[in-house]
């Protein structure tokens, strides 16, 4: 029997920009076991949410993730709106949908670039990130921000869209639709791309279900579940769209699902903007949140995201639980990695589109042996950031 080697990667490592630790057991070049350790990015958001008011929480929860910020904010307001028993006006529901789908396009284009980069196809990385600028600009036109849009409030949205903004958005997504045709062509026809990702990171459908995978990771293995269709929120019950699945189960399947979803997002945005209902964008909301509890689900770009909010009648929530899609998808990733080659580790991990700032949220830590923490003034922080010499 050949000797086995343990290969630790991370928490700081070349695969991802965010910290997570992987421990691979190798037999030659083949992975025979994989283990995960996380927590390096925990910021204590669930605990912090219990110590802040609902409106403060909304701003903090929006900042859980820089990409899925609208996801978390919408999910949190939806849960609180359920407890408040508030009906959101139709126009606000449509506007939430539009921003949510632009966010999906932004996230999927970002993923496509990262996937291209991980397999050495850097041209794909450059062109897809160039096109991502279009959707970032649209989000800035609509909400005022490229990330952390601040669009949501309890009972509706904070900003309306005028005709000029609608026209700009329709113009922008038309360009994106044309560019996506090219990406689809790459995913379906480019022989080097297909050779590099087909059969890689195989996840059978039964394992995907047993390990509770969600989003494009699950749909790429033929699991036909999409929160937008199965538990419609915002305006998804009034907008026609298709749920994209693939039976392939490999990285190529996940790519085809994501590219297909960009087309569906474009369709949803077009439909929503052409059928935008007239009327107010916020409902009147009681000042006090009564006792109660609610869950809210949202189809984030990476899959189902769920929030559970428990209210005790005070101005602060009793408990806020956030489960981001990456947490769900990390459980099946071990199966994707088994019997694969070391060289395929980056693309297999990238294929679930991991987002650790969503997944890891908890505690502020001081390392053992570290001196007393120091609190810096803004001026001192700024001085240090521009200091030329090491301190």
């Amino acid at each position: 029997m050949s000797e086995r080697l343990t290969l630790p990667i991370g928490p700081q490592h070349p695969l991802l920009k965010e910290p997570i630790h992987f421990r691979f057991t190798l037999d030659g070049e083949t992975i025979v076991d994989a283990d995960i350790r996380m927590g390096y990015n925990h910021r204590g958001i669930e605990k912090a949410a219990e110590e802040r008011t609902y409106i403060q929480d909304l701003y903090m929860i929006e900042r859980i993730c820089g990409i899925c910020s609208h996801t978390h904010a919408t999910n949190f307001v939806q849960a609180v709106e359920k407890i408040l028993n508030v009906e959101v006006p139709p126009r606000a529901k449509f506007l939430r949908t539009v921003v949510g789908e632009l966010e999906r396009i932004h996230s999927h284009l970002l993923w496509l670039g990262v996937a291209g980069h991980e397999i050495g196809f850097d041209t794909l990385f450059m062109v897809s990130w160039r096109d991502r600028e279009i959707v970032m600009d649209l989000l800035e036109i609509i909400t005022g921000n490229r990330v952390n849009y601040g669009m949501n409030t309890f009972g509706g949205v904070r900003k309306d869209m005028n005709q000029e903004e609608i026209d700009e958005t329709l113009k922008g997504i038309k360009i994106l639709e044309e560019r996506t045709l090219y990406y689809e062509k790459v995913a379906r026809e480019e022989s080097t791309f297909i050779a590099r990702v087909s059969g890689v990171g195989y996840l059978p459908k039964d394992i995907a279900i047993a390990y509770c995978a969600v989003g494009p990771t699950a749909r790429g293995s033929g699991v036909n579940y999409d929160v937008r269709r199965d538990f419609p929120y915002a305006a998804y019950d009034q907008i026609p769209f298709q749920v994209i699945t693939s039976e392939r189960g490999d990285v190529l399947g996940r790519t085809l699902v994501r590219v297909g979803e960009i087309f569906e997002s474009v369709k949803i945005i077009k439909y929503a903007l052409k059928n935008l209902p007239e009327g107010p964008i916020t409902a009147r909301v009681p000042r006090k949140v009564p006792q109660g509890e609610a869950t809210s689900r949202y189809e984030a770009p990476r899959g189902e995201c769920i929030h559970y909010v428990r209210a005790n009648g005070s101005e602060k929530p009793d408990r806020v639980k956030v489960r981001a899609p990456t947490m769900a998808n990390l459980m099946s990733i071990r199966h994707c990695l088994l019997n694969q080659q070391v060289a395929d580790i980056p693309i297999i991990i990238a294929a679930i589109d991991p987002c650790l700032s969503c997944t890891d949220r908890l505690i502020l830590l001081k390392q053992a042996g570290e001196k007393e923490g120091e609190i810096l003034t803004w001026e001192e922080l700024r001085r240090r950031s521009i200091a030329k010499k090491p301190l």
Partner: protein
Amino acid sequence: MGMWVDVNSSEIRNWVEEFLKSGAFRLLSTISGYEEGDNYYILYHFVGSEGDLNVRTSVPKENPVLPSITPVLPGGILYEREIQDLLGVKFEGIIDGRRLILPEHWPEGVYPLRKDFKPGEVKSNE
């Protein structure tokens, strides 16, 4: 909104096993926990072909132990490990009960999501 069901904590594994067999599509979205009065409450948030289902069970604070569902549903592993780390509720029979989130030198018996925990008061056990 959705269905809410109460299950005795000693029955939870059997209940989940039966539930998984009872329909075509079953997904455990997450497990969450909170404390109230003398108990910790654990909520299993499921999705099925019929809709969503939240299953609640409780364990007393003096002995917060309940059966793990991971032998029948391996997809619950990270959620149970997260609760073990943060709320200090133990899952008996968990297929992998190591720490997931807290670092190795975090002191035993300190659980950040409990209400009596205040941020900033933890000392490393090294």
